[in-house]
């Protein structure tokens, strides 16, 4: 097979505007996550960032496995609302 050619497949360089916009997005998400109740934050981190299964989330947090899904549902909705509010505030 052909060798990987770094010149052909190099990563696109990010321009300053893109970098700034991504830094803003990271800050927005971090603040939104920090503002969530600890239980919601915990299940979101475990599922979205650690990739844990519901069973693993149940074992780690002590939440009964039957309620992991509903907790995650409320956590996602809360995060979505928080981000929407944050974006609306920035628009003013």
């Amino acid at each position, binding site marked *: *097979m052909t060798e990987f050619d770094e010149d052909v*497949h190099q990563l696109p360089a*990010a321009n300053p505007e*893109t970098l700034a916009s991504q830094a803003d997005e990271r800050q927005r998400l971090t603040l939104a996550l920090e503002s969530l109740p600890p239980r919601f*934050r915990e299940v979101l981190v475990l*599922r979205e960032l650690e*990739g*844990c299964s519901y069973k693993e989330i149940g074992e780690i947090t002590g939440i009964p496995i039957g309620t992991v*899904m509903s907790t995650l549902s409320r956590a996602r909705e809360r995060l979505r609302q928080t981000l929407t509010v944050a974006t609306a505030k920035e628009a003013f």
Partner: protein
Amino acid sequence: MSCELAQTTIHGYFDGELDAVRSAEFERHLERCAECQSALADIESLHTRIQQSNIYEQASPDLRNRIRKQIKQAAGRTSATPESSRIKWFLAPTFGALAAAAAVITIMFFVVQPRTQSARITAELIDAHVRSLQPGHLMDVQSTDQHTVKPWFDGKLDFIPPVSDYSEQGFPLVGGRLDVVDGHNTAALVYSRRKHFINLFVWPYREKEFNSDNSGSRQGYNWVSWQAGEMRFCLISDAAASDLRELKDLIHP
């Protein structure tokens, strides 16, 4: 929301936590429920946004092990409840072994990744990944030895996929199988990451429009796709996107 499924079951569906029967039932419901379609798009959009923000970095296997050991030692010294309302939020999940790596959440570098991959091929790959997880479908050859897996493909494909084991880096090779992508025979190598399986699909691809790196998520599955020479590579799993990027960097540093 008035549709009850849009508040609960849809999350199990997105996260791949429903069994085959419930998943199929929900898909039938999804076809005619605009509310669930919209809710699914919202969940997917939020998931992608979190994944692409790169606000999180996982610990190396070595650091994970050391943190786990310290947690066990600390747990042995005190019977106090580990969770404290004063503890930084990102430390809270560390009290479970699997979440130990959350102790090293840091702001990390970020990479712009164009999303130009054919949606059709991505969908096919995700379907192939899901199919592989059904009982008895994951592997045609089961071995952690790259020198067993690689020769197994001889004569079955018109190309030779690169096969390496990354056990020391936390991605042990589990086996391999033949699959079909876009109507062509494809090599599928199976790695494991903690309790998750990762499929690495490898196939020859020459069309320039797909000659780009990209990543994303759909229905709870993450993918990272790239091209090296005339070969296309795609990692798919329900493991964290950062895990897939780590494995990709091992395959093509």
